[in-house]
């Protein structure tokens, strides 16, 4: 077990302090409402959807890749379940499986294209982003004649994916917690996690060390496809409808959350705790502003300043932590 001292010196402490700082800021300016269950639900619900996507996107980034296609994966999977179980009235489970299957398939295609073509994943997933958006729009119009389709999920589906606990907290929150545990386990406690870190650190050396880099890459893209599809699917059930134009903001926001959480854009470094804290920080800043009563015209300015402040704090502490981390018995070495 690590000592308290070494825990305090962990790099994630920086992210934690950044998050606490914005939390304090909004507790002061947002008042009691922000701290109430309803207020917490407001940013936790946003964080949970963003977080489910940010986790695999973070793993990908640690491994040195990006996935932009999540942005059209979300509407694609929403429309899939809505068309199958809404428009065609097939059982909801068929829609759920189809939309999740679509996510896995798109992820697989992304992964195979990246490893086969050696084109940077930014470009490959950009192409699939456009292609998938086009397919979704075109097929939706052909199949359902419309760009937005209604869906009535049964009570079980609602309970599992699209309900509010205590009338406030989305069930996706629990899915997020599950995802955190799984991804946390993978990154910190499994061999696979070590491979991801190594690939991001030095892809050539990682391959030379015998890591099946191709398989890892494909698996990572499939997981980000799956998670994006999951979010799209559960949004369709929660909001009883699906639209063709939805979810593009997740592309950017997931990258932002991950980078705020201290993952290196160039790969090789990052932690699940950091990604979670980054997601929370970004969600708090984005939603907290609604509790402050500040004129909405200045919202972006405040968001910008807070983001910078949070990351600055984060970085200061991280670098302190990294310098001091290997506390050996100093001169006695």
């Amino acid at each position, binding site marked *: 077990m690590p000592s308290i001292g070494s825990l305090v010196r962990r790099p994630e402490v920086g992210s934690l302090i950044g998050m606490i700082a914005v939390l304090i800021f909004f507790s002061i300016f947002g008042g009691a409402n922000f701290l109430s269950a309803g207020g917490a639900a407001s940013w936790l619900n946003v964080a949970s959807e963003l977080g489910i996507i940010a986790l695999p996107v973070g793993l990908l980034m640690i491994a040195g890749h990006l996935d932009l296609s999540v942005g059209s994966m979300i509407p694609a999977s929403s429309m899939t379940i809505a068309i199958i179980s809404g428009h065609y009235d097939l059982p909801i489970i068929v829609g759920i499986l189809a939309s999740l299957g679509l996510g896995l398939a798109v992820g697989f295609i992304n992964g195979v294209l990246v490893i086969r073509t050696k084109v940077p994943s930014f470009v490959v997933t950009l192409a699939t982003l456009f292609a998938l958006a086009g397919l979704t729009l075109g097929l939706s119009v052909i199949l359902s004649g419309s760009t937005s389709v209604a869906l009535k999920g049964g009570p079980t589906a609602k309970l599992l994916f699209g309900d509010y606990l205590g009338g406030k907290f989305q069930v996706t929150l629990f899915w997020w917690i599950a995802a955190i545990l799984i991804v946390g*386990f993978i990154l910190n406690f*499994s*061999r696979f996690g070590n491979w991801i870190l*190594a690939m991001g650190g030095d892809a050539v*050396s990682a391959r030379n*060390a015998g890591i099946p880099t191709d398989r890892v890459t494909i698996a990572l893209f499939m997981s980000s496809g799956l998670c994006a599809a999951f979010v799209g699917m559960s949004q369709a059930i929660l909001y009883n409808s699906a639209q063709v134009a939805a979810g593009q903001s997740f592309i950017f926001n997931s990258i932002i959350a991950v980078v705020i959480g201290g993952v*290196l854009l160039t790969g*090789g470094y990052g932690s699940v705790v950091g990604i979670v804290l980054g997601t929370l920080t970004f969600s708090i800043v984005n939603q907290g502003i609604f509790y402050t009563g500040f004129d909405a015209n200045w919202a972006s300015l405040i968001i910008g300043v807070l983001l910078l402040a949070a990351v600055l704090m984060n970085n200061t502490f991280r670098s302190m932590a990294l310098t001091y981390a*290997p506390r050996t018995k100093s001169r006695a070495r």
Partner: protein
Amino acid sequence: MTTPLLRLTGINKSFGPIDVLHDISLEVNRGEVLCLLGDNGAGKSTLIRILSGVHKPTSGTMEMDGKAVAFDSPRDASDHGIATVHQFGGTFPLMSIGRSFFVGAEPTRRWGPLTIYDRKRANEIAVTEMRQLGITRIDDGDRLVGGLSGGERQALAIARAVHFGASVLILDEPTAALGVKEAAHVLRIVLQARRKGIAVIFITHNVVHALTVGDHFAVLIRGAKAADFRKGEKSREAITDLMAGGEQMAELEAEIESFTATHDQHA
């Protein structure tokens, strides 16, 4: 003699129009150290990369234990028992020493129903194996590799290969960044490996090191095998000339000599 553990026949390798290796044939035996010598750019590392599955030869065949093999990936080669320390890289600055040591072959333990990475054991083994190489200052396997000195990092890579080297251990200039003590430890480790019956391929630019451990010498000059001889068959001077790409070193050494001489007059 028995069949060699590893036999290369007519290996060629070109990158586009550049022919780097030309018709190399070699044999490596169990319990022997093959010293691969040659000037900078002679093609030693390229040959090593072929043996370890990083590159595929343009033409030529490889046999292990008399059976033809072709490695699709480094993993393939290591599954055949070949462990390699490449000239550069092999460690990951932002990873811990323990994780870097076991990359791709992590030890695991049961944790309830789950199989998890055994951090403690990995760290312990990594630290112990580095101590074997004379690196006694590192006692915490959680330290980041990025904070190690050049030699410490090199030792980490070597320790890893030694630990995993099942039947062939390939070391590409392992002693380059090492201090005299650590280098001596590496030589000791190489000899220990040889005693265990492992075949070792050892690349070095240091004549003394080569002569200390080598049983068998192969010299590459401009991508072709220029000489292939066993211990004691050539003089140290002849070997030095071969390592210099076949040029006479005497002249250069004389020039250096003369500098030293002039200077001593100054002093």
